[in-house]
Structures are given as C-alpha cells and as structure tokens.
C-alpha cells in the first residue's frame, strides 16, 4: 500500500513538473495555452536571438501571437499535429536531459545556454526523424518571424503599395462569408485594368507594413 502511495505521489510530482506552473500570459489567446506560449517564446529567443544580423529578435516579433492566428486558421486535424510538435519539444528534455545542472526540466524552463545546446542537437542530428521535427518547428517560427512587418521592412521585402483595379469579377463576388447584396460596387465603378507599369521599388510599402503615419498616408489601402 505504501509503495503504491509513493508511486502515486511521484507520478503526481512528475505530472506537476511537466504540465503545471506556467506563468499566465499577459493576454488571452484563442488557441494557445500557457505552456505553448512559454515554449514558443523561449524557442524564439534562441532561434532568432537579439544582437543578430537583423536588429529585431524573435521575442520582439510576437511569435505566440502569430502561432495563435495560424492555429486558429487551420483545420483541427492539422492543428492537433502542430500542437503535438510543440508538446514534444517542450517535454522531451525531461526524458533526454539537456547537459548541465538540472537539465532534465521542460524546454521552456532551461537556461538559454541549455536551450541552444538542445536545438543544436536537434538541428545537427543524423537521425532523419529528429531533423524533420526540428525543421517543422523552425518552419512554423520562421513563418511568423519573417511575416512580421518590422522584419520585412528592415529587409526591404515588404509588399508594395498600389491600388487594385476594380474588375468585373469584383461586382460578382462578395467578401468571404458575406451576402452578394453587400457588394457596394456597380459597373460605373469599374476602373481600367492594370497597364503593366511595374511597381515602384522605391515607392511606399503597403499600409499594413508602413512604419509611420506619413507612410500610411502615402500608401493607399
């Protein structure tokens, strides 16, 4: 009986160590839970560190916000797979500890040096499955990092600002989810089609990527 109690207590401690004790995020997320937010932030800190070639770190890029939007947009089956990927990364160090003192903690609780070593292990593993898992996690975070307007603006890769012509199809199709009666355009609103004038490389960027109010003013929606 006492052995059973000891086992149960150890099990409870293990579950607590694995799944509880995460700091509450400073805002609400639609999909992400605190442990996923912690994993994404602590991975982003190592994946896209401060002081690198792009002076805007993974922590600055609000990758939990991106991941939450992405997971909200995809179907449940795929969402489950990606969340399983997060869970794997977060907890695998409890079974295969990171080097150094107390390396058997969940990933988000490791020191930054230990996290670097763990990611290095995944990244350079000769094991195909491990490389694949690492590549998948990096892909999700890269999408978020390089999708951030500030990063794209700094790289001068933000989308250009230009007006979309109004074509006949725009009189037919409502915005997704809306009723066709919501289309406010008529045939008088049609504009000449694109004449093939190239976008201006030095021109303003799209308003969603503009930095200042002046740029926003110059950049039509």
């Amino acid at each position, binding site marked *: 009986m006492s052995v059973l109690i000891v086992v149960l207590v150890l099990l409870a401690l293990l579950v607590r160590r694995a799944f509880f004790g995460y700091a509450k995020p400073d805002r609400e997320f639609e999909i992400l839970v605190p442990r996923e937010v912690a994993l994404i932030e602590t991975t982003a800190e*190592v*994946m*896209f*560190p401060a002081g*690198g*070639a*792009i002076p805007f770190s993974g922590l600055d890029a609000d990758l939990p916000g991106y991941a939450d*939007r*992405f997971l909200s*947009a*995809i*179907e449940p089956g*795929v969402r489950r*797979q990606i969340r399983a990927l997060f869970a794997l990364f977060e907890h695998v160090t409890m079974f295969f500890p990171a080097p150094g003192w107390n390396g058997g903690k969940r990933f988000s609780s490791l020191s930054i040096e230990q996290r*670097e070593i763990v*990611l290095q292990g995944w*990244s350079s593993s000769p094991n195909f499955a491990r*490389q*694949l898992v690492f590549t998948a996690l*990096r*892909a*999700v975070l*890269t*999408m978020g*990092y*390089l*999708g951030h307007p500030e*990063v*794209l603006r700094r*790289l*001068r*890769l933000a*989308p*250009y600002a*230009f007006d*979309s*012509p109004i*074509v*006949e*199809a*725009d009189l*037919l*199709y*409502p*915005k*997704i*989810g809306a*009723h*066709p009666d919501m*289309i406010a355009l*008529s*045939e008088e609103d049609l504009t000449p*089609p*694109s*004449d*093939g*004038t190239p*976008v201006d*490389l030095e021109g303003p960027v799209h308003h*969603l990527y503009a930095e200042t109010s002046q740029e926003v003013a110059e950049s039509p929606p």
Partner: protein
Amino acid sequence: MSAPRTIAAARNDGLRVYAQYDGDFEEEADVLVVGSGPSGAVVAHGIAAAGRSVILLEEGPPFTPQDYEFEGSLSMARTMREAGLRRTEGTILPTMQAIALGGGSLVNSAICVRPPAFIFDQWAEFFELEHTSREVLDPHFDAVEKFLGIAPTPENVQGRRNLLMKEACDKLGYSSEPIARNVRGCKGSGECFTGCRARAKQSMDISYIPEAMRLGARVLTSVQVQRVLHEGRRATGVEGQVVEPLTGRPGHRFRVRAGTVVLAAGCMATPVLLQRSDDLANRSGQVGRNLQFHPGVAVAGIFPDVVNPQFGATQGWQSLEFLRDGFKLETLWAPPPVSAVRMPGFGKALLERFHDLPYLANWDAIGSTHRSLGTVKARRRGMKPRLKWNFHHEDVKILTHALWVIAELFFAAGARKIIPGVMGLPPEMHSLDDARVLQTHPIKARDLISAGNHAFCTTRMHGDSSLGVVDEFGRCHDLDNLYIADTGIFPRCPSVNPMFTGMALAHRATQRILESL
C-alpha cells in the same frame, strides 16, 4: 439575337455563395461540372457558350483582394486544402491543392507551357492514344491562349532575379526563354502565390468563370460533392453538402441532376469521389493508382549585389534545355517567410541567412519522375485523400543532376554562395568546387527538400479500357456520360507545368460532350 447579359445580371442569376444557402436544395442542368479549377472552368464556359445549361460546383469560396493574406502561411491556411500541409506517406512529399473558386489558378504563378511534341508521342506510344498528338491539340491550345491572353513575360517586369537566369543560361550555352503566362498587365509585384492584387493574372475566377456566368452558367460555391449518382452505365447527378468557407463545417444537403457529369475536382479529389460512389468507373482497377508528381528541388543563390527578389514576375524565366534528361528549370519567388523556410541552422547563423534575402534568387527544377508512383485512396470517413508515394532511385538521380546544373548556373551568373537544400551536405557552398559534392555524394530521396504541386495520372487515359479510366477525350470507359477533365487523366507526367495542357484537353473534351448532348 438577344442582348448580351450584363455582369450585374450574372450576379443576380448565376452565382450562389455560402450566405445564400438557407435550406436543402436540388438543381438540374444539361451538364454539371465538379471543380472550378482551370479544366473545369474551361468546360463550363464551353458548355455555356454553346447555349446549353450548365452548373459549376466548387467547394471553396470566391476570394476577393480583401480576402488575400500577404503572410505566406496564413494565405495557405485559407486557400489550400489541409492548410497547405498535405503530404504523401512513403516518401514524404509536401503537395498543395487549392480550395477556392478558380482552383489552383488563384494561387499559382500562371505558367502556360505547351509540352513539346515528343511528350505526346510518348503518351501515344505507351498508352495507345491515337488522337492526342501535339498537332491535334494545338488548335485547343490556341483557343485557350487567345482567351486568356497568354504571352511571354515582358522584360520590364522580369526583375533581376529572373534575368540572372537568362544571363547564366547564355553563358553556359543553354537555351532559355521568358515564361508564357496567362497574365495581362503584370506589375511584377511577385504576389502570384497569395493572390494577384493587380488583378493581372487571368485566374479562372476573373476570366473563364465570369464569362461563363455572363453566358448563363450557374456557379454554386461552398458546396462539397460527396457522391456521384448513377444508374447502370449512366451518371445521373451528384449530391453533397454545403460547407462553410475556411472551416469546412458541413451544412445543408444538395442534389444536382444532369444529363452529363464532368468531374474536374483535381487529381486527388476526383478518385476519392469515384471511390466514395460505389467505386464508380473502376472496372480497370486504375482509379487512384499511378499517382505521379513533378517533384521540385530549389537552390538559393546569394549574389554580391542586391537582387531585390520581391520585384519581378513570380516565375518569369525557364529553360527547357534538359527536358529530355528529365527536368525543367525555372526561376521562383514566394513570400519571404515561405522562401526562407528551408534555410538551415538557427540562431545568429540563421539570421545572417535571412539578412541575405535581398541578395537572393531561387531557381528550381521540376522532375519528370514517371517511375515514382503512388496511390490516392479515400479514408474511412470524409473526402480527404490518403496519399502514398515513393521516390524511385532513378528519379532521385534526375533531381540530383538538376541540383548540379542549377549550381553551375548560379556560379556562372556570379553568385557568391548557394544554399542547395540537401540534408547531409554542407548547408552553404561557396564555389563550383564546393558544389561538386552534389555529383559525388550518394544523395537519397529523403535528403532532398522537395515538394510536388503538380499531380497526375490517378484516373489516367488509356486506349485500352482495361488499363485506363478514361478514353483520350476524357469519357470514362465504364459509363456513357461521365467525363473527367483534370490532370488525373494525364497518362504520364507532362514534364512541363500542367495547367495549359489540362485546359487544352478540357477544351477538346467540351466539344465531344457537346456532340453527345
């Protein structure tokens, strides 16, 4: 002669979107077409132009520029099945199929290439086809070309990323050319994959489909066809459910009856639909078999000077020099987050590579890998396919050869380094000498970072009804009035981008359908 219908009239009569479905419903037409991608749109237009009643069914919604997402993954989540994360089992190969009015034409780079005659000669030889030569199909290519304004990409929107390939090919003596595309007035914004804000790309939703509606076609969007109805040797219609855009949540049921049924749901969805319909049209046992792709490999080249890769036609230049060796070369651009996904490493080294993005050009090769075969099967429930596919070692050699040729081209054009994207090899190579490892290292299928978005052959045409699903006009061997008009009917991968060939075959099938009505 009656006055031409206006677009406004087409809107009132022809189109139904999700918000308009308020209960179960039934419809009827001479012809119904399942799938509004390039092939389905051509058929629907042709039937409507002949004055016959036609209903075009599409599972996805229409997208307006307000619905486009710049950010690559969010765009894919909205426009692609399984959020763009679909992949094969066996050899893992990502593959994307669109779910939108206009199908893949909404989010592809508009490439329109006629396969050379030798490709069709091979089809004829191996699949007993008598009427599918390039010469026979040319009038159909011509008709589509004229309608869509297909033309070579103009030089003023090529951008440096595309023109560097021309320069490299010229230096090495390889033939190359601007890519012909269904685009009018390209601005070179490089946004083909997330939806053309310039409304220059003549995707089906702004070209064939509005014109078909003007001619009287009815277009039902957000409807998932789940079963083909049939009696004896005749298809009588289809049934399915309304699905909510973006979530796929099922709603009202519908049934559409028609004298002729055309399946153009795509190489993955059409076989599943047949399997879900009592294994229809499958006396040959070929439905869902013979799955082939054009697996692609891409190499990134980093140049000493700024390339400004975001400017220019998404894919503006190509070389058919190596087509007989099994691959086609092209330039490529995608939103930066997508372009960078394959960059190796992490931390400061990864940020250095991101920092090189303005100096980058991506060139790719698509392989004619007809030895690498797979299957498409319906899952126990739902309409999602289960894909299995295996890369044949001889086909891996084709892509390995292609990687070497791309490396040669990059260094000929003055690249200071390349990122070959091959697992197990150095992530960066700084000279052609470094790149020789591409010739000497035994590269395996799983070492390649590859994707296959052109898919074929799962309902292949064959002159012998025991070896194919349809005849060379797209009619199912087993039924009198069921046609298939998507890339699934290709007997073998066409070696070049398939949209144009699919449309030409669909144009020809339409004539045959009209003759049979």
